[in-house]
């Protein structure tokens, strides 16, 4: 637990802020895994796309962020054991996962992205047939790639392996979280890697080959313990507001994402959560209305 000024126990906290029911009034304890450019910690401050979004939300709610750097298992257990108030960082919503806690409204939608070397272009799933395709072991894309006819799967322990082999020409396409590719390109320009957004497979394609499901965007969320209903509501409201006031678009752009890709949901998102952890008439936040 670095940073924060958590030592001075009784603080000037407004009644509204106190009502959020954080572990320590006025303080938002956040578990993060180092996963730049989504989440990272610098000088005791949380940074990255998820980090900036949450920082903005915390400001609005009068909360002070106190980050805890851990790994993925530690993030989950931190929330579940009440060590932290919330965890962030590209956590995808799924029906199974939401049984173990609360998910906020999606701060963004993660579109499927392809890392390629130089100026190669691919757009649809059909373009991938017969190629050398890479991803990280354990990612959902492993299954999807295996379903592509004639393609050969290369699974790496982490994204660095994908980048290295793309640069070396042993891979045609790498499937990774989108901002990772952008950031890697910024950090290591010598690799000459660029980002391509994929045109998601159609409903018919997914029906024919269910593993293609993961080539569609997924919705992320901030994850909280089941009791933290007040806090979840407040954070979700702020997220929705950020779609409205353009703040979200600003941040996605700041971190190298395409707002169009990141902030417009498909119809499937509403049906997935409506009636599960959202009201039946829930509509996912979007910037499309503004545009």
């Amino acid at each position, binding site marked *: 637990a670095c940073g924060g000024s958590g030592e001075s126990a009784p603080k000037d906290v407004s009644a509204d802020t106190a009502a959020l029911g954080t572990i320590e009034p006025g303080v938002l304890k956040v578990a993060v895994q180092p996963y730049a450019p989504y989440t990272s910690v610098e000088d005791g401050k949380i940074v990255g796309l998820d980090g900036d979004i949450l920082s903005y939300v915390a400001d609005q709610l009068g909360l002070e962020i106190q980050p805890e750097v851990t790994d993925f298992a530690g993030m989950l257990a931190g929330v579940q054991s009440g060590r932290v108030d919330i965890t962030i960082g590209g956590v995808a919503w799924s029906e199974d996962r939401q049984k*173990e806690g609360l998910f906020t409204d999606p701060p963004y939608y993660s579109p499927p992205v392809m890392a390629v070397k130089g100026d190669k272009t691919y757009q649809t799933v059909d373009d991938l047939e017969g190629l050398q395709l890479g991803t990280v072991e354990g990612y959902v894309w492993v299954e999807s790639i295996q379903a592509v006819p004639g393609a050969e799967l290369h*699974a790496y322990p982490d994204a660095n392996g994908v980048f290295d082999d793309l640069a070396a020409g042993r891979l045609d396409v790498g499937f990774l979280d989108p901002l990772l590719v952008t950031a890697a390109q910024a950090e290591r320009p010598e690799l000459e890697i660029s980002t391509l957004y994929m045109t998601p497979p159609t409903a018919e394609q997914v029906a024919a080959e269910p593993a293609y499901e993961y080539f569609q965007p997924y919705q992320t969320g901030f994850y909280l313990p089941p009791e933290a209903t007040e806090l979840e509501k407040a954070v979700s409201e702020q997220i929705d507001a950020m779609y409205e006031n353009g703040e979200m678009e600003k941040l996605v752009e700041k971190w190298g994402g395409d707002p169009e890709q990141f902030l417009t949901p498909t119809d499937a998102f509403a049906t997935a959560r409506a009636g599960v952890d959202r009201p039946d008439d829930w509509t996912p936040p979007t910037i499309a209305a503004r545009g």
Partner: protein
Amino acid sequence: MSGLFEVPWADYQSELTDALLRTVLYTVVSFAGAVVLGLVVALLRLSRARPARVVAAVYTEVFKNVPLLAIIFLTYFGLASVGIRLDVFMAGALSLTVFYAAYLSETFRSAISGVHAGQTEAGEALGLGRTGIFGQVVMPQALRLALPGTNTFLVDLLKSTSLLVTISAAELMSEGRLITSATFRALEVYIVISAIYFALCYPLSQVLLWLERKVRAGVPLTPWRRRRMRAARALLAADIGSAGSGSAGSGSSGPGSTDLGLKEAAA
């Protein structure tokens, strides 16, 4: 939080079984490698050639003073970036091998030097030759001395396969993490994975203790030694069967019968 056991373990059974087998495979291969490499390093450290000793000492010190996590990482990614691409299994097993070889070499070295100098001398005086002395006199005794330490490291190695999660080795801990990410039930998964490790390690350590006791008791472990002991027992039957007839069998060539008589009366 809801009830403790909610993960649908049955769904993961076949993956867990695979992961468990892979854990065992990593353990077996790496341990065999570490024993061989450790022995080589120990012999180098005991050799008369100073360069050999220095190389072995540097090896041992480096690997003993760096976290295994870092070694695993560097073997997999580091070697790859200089053009040596090992697959996950090779890299994982190699990391464990080189790391534990450093520790084992220390155990072996002290076991070998722990064999009394008089033993080598007795071997020399019997004309056993260098290989005879090493193979038949020093090694079997060093084995006895080295077993406890070696066994500790075997169990330790088994547990350390959990660090291969860094390179997604698909062993138990990696599988645990996959289940965690699917179900979000980290705590439950950790408890179950710990229990599986315990179920692997505890019987293993008990078997090794048992083996240690056998070896210490001098029980013949090789078939040829068992055969020799059987033949010897047959030949000595008359002497051992009843102590009285034994000493009688030795005739007047044994020491004075008075002495033997006293011994037997006391026994």
